């Protein structure tokens, strides 16, 4: 395998919960609670999970858009978490992010041209005519017309805005893109256009993607490997085919079985989980999934699962699972 472009080790982000008159810290939301993975150059790692599992926070901690509480993130050998502000800026040339909501992530008062030229100026990459040329090039790259540079974001549809968000991220020629739910706000017919665009760009520009999403079918379509998160932790990580054909963690299994299949003759056999995701402020003891786990109950191992926290271990080459019974 190629070298890891990004190495994440035991990443944690705990948000304090403040209460009362003096904003006393009454506890912590453990949004990300010990996440480790490698991102190989040129691959797409899908990071999936339900709302509140910490996938978005993980993505933002990697770029230090949110400061992690602890843990290390190494990009190409450099420790991102130890960088000073100036060094961090130069790192941001290499790592960029595309956000979910194309309506709120573009500045409504900047023309598309100024918006795309801004990162070029900040990083001292191009000015004046050179910048204009680069803007035209970026617009063409994402399938838009260079003429669009004079327009404002409100003149564009959701799918076009997402293309512009991608163009902005690509302006500084990064090597890694964190894609935070890049297609979930879009209609199906537009979603396919953006998924294809991301794929073409990855080939053309040899990009590495961390694709954060909740839609398991989209993630399967784009990913090389997939990591499943539950309550701030990765519970399973495997190459795409393995994860979808042979999921070992009971949470992954129920998650996959819950996806409605667009085929009326294959109405799915569901493993319907009972209850809701527990609060990340008070995660359950032992295995965090045990209160909802069909396997723990079935095997009569509730005592073990509620006291003994399973570590993420390699059950087959490249296939990591955090379950006692994997």
């Amino acid at each position, binding site marked *: 395998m190629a070298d890891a472009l990004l190495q994440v080790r035991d990443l944690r982000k705990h948000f304090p919960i403040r209460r009362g008159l003096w904003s006393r810290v009454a506890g912590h939301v453990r949004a990300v609670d010990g996440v480790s993975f490698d991102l190989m150059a040129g691959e797409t790692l899908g990071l999936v999970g*339900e*709302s509140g599992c910490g996938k978005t926070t993980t993505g933002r901690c990697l770029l230090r858009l949110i400061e992690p509480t602890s843990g290390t993130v190494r990009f190409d050998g450099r420790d991102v978490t130890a960088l000073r502000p100036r060094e961090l800026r130069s790192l941001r040339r290499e790592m960029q992010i595309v956000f979910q909501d194309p309506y709120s992530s573009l500045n409504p008062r900047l023309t598309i041209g100024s918006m795309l030229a801004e990162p070029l100026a900040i990083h001292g990459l191009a000015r004046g005519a050179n910048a204009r040329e680069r803007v035209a090039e970026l617009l063409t790259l994402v399938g838009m017309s260079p003429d669009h540079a004079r327009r404002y974001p409100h003149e564009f*549809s959701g*799918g*076009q805005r997402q293309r512009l968000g991608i163009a902005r991220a690509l302006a500084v020629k990064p090597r890694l893109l964190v894609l935070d739910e890049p297609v979930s706000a879009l*209609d*199906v*017919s*537009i*979603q*396919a*256009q953006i*998924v*294809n665009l991301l*794929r073409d760009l990855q080939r053309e520009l040899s990009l590495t993607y961390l694709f954060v999403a*909740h839609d*398991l*079918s*989209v993630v*399967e*379509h784009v990913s090389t490997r997939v990591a499943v998160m539950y309550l701030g932790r990765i519970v399973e990580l495997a190459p*795409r085919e393995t994860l*979808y054909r042979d999921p070992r963690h009971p949470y992954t299994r*129920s*998650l*996959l*079985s*819950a*996806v*409605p*299949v*667009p*085929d*009326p*003759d*294959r*109405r*799915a056999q*569901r493993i*319907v*989980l*009972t209850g*809701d*995701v527990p609060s990340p402020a008070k995660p359950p003891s032992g295995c965090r999934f045990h209160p909802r786990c069909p396997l723990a109950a079935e095997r009569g191992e509730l005592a073990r699962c509620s006291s003994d926290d399973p570590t993420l271990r390699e059950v087959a080459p490249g296939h990591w699972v955090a379950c006692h019974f994997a």
Partner: protein
Amino acid sequence: MTEPLLELRELKTHFFTDDGVVRAVDGVSFALYAGETLAVVGESGSGKSVTSLSVLRLVASPPGRIVGGSIRFRGRDLLALAEAEMRAIRGKEISMIFQEPMTSLNPVYTCGEQIMEVIELHEGLGRAAARVRAIEMLRHVGISSPEQRVDEYPHQMSGGMRQRVMIAMALACKPSVLIADEPTTALDVTIQAQILELLQKLRRELGMAVLLITHDLGVVAETADRVAVMYAGQVVEYCGVREAFRSTRHPYTAGLLASLPRLGDEHQRLRVIPGNVPNPVRFPAGCRFHPRCPIAVERCRSEVPALRDVGGGHLARCFRAEEIASGAVDPVAGEGAPRG
């Protein structure tokens, strides 16, 4: 088949805005029969939600107005009813659940009070009896310890639980029609699975008809009996769920199905429908789908296709439906390409 419970004919709901007339719903017809689930599918801006709001006459006016057509429920024209008569139908005979359970529940009343209000209003029960019914309904929709939950406020509950409360409220008076507008879109997949299962179970138990408004073709395949596909304010295809997925006769439906990434598919490019949904103030002339259609011909640019029976009760709004059926053209790849 017997008489439909609910029947829309050529319904038109337009919005009169500064930018012009938005023809959100522009001649929609379909029928809903007792005990079935009819899915109305479409992308944003297709008019599916405005259609469902029109049925209950909940479209904000101004700017919106139902400008034409009829909505018949058990033989009565809902558009001719006085507001007081309409109020007696809403929540009692036809109920609705919305996408966002947080914004559609009142944050200053307990969940119990909101369910009790419906029961007191429509069934004339006293508070004590209504409370007993509310607790019973909460248990029915799978909320644990309903005796305590009944006194909780919406913010104390999770998204899935709030959607259950909405369902309890909608079903408290055992309506014959439930309109579910994107009931699971705001929920996670594992919670979505719970809610869909619950809706199916309640539909069977109560024998009600469900009008399911959704953009999710997976949800349609798993829950619907029949499907109405909407595009640009009109129904473009109307058929049984199997026909829609197995033998569609409309290039828009075909394009939607082809653009889905599916679990278990190969790592290849997705098919796309080129372009965007048209602006509802200026729909294209002729067939509204023609600028994005891979098999559009000259006729499609000038003539408006009717929604017609293209065989065995399968309705489609396309001049070339027969050619699609015979395999003479591929509705996704376009002219001349072999099907398959």
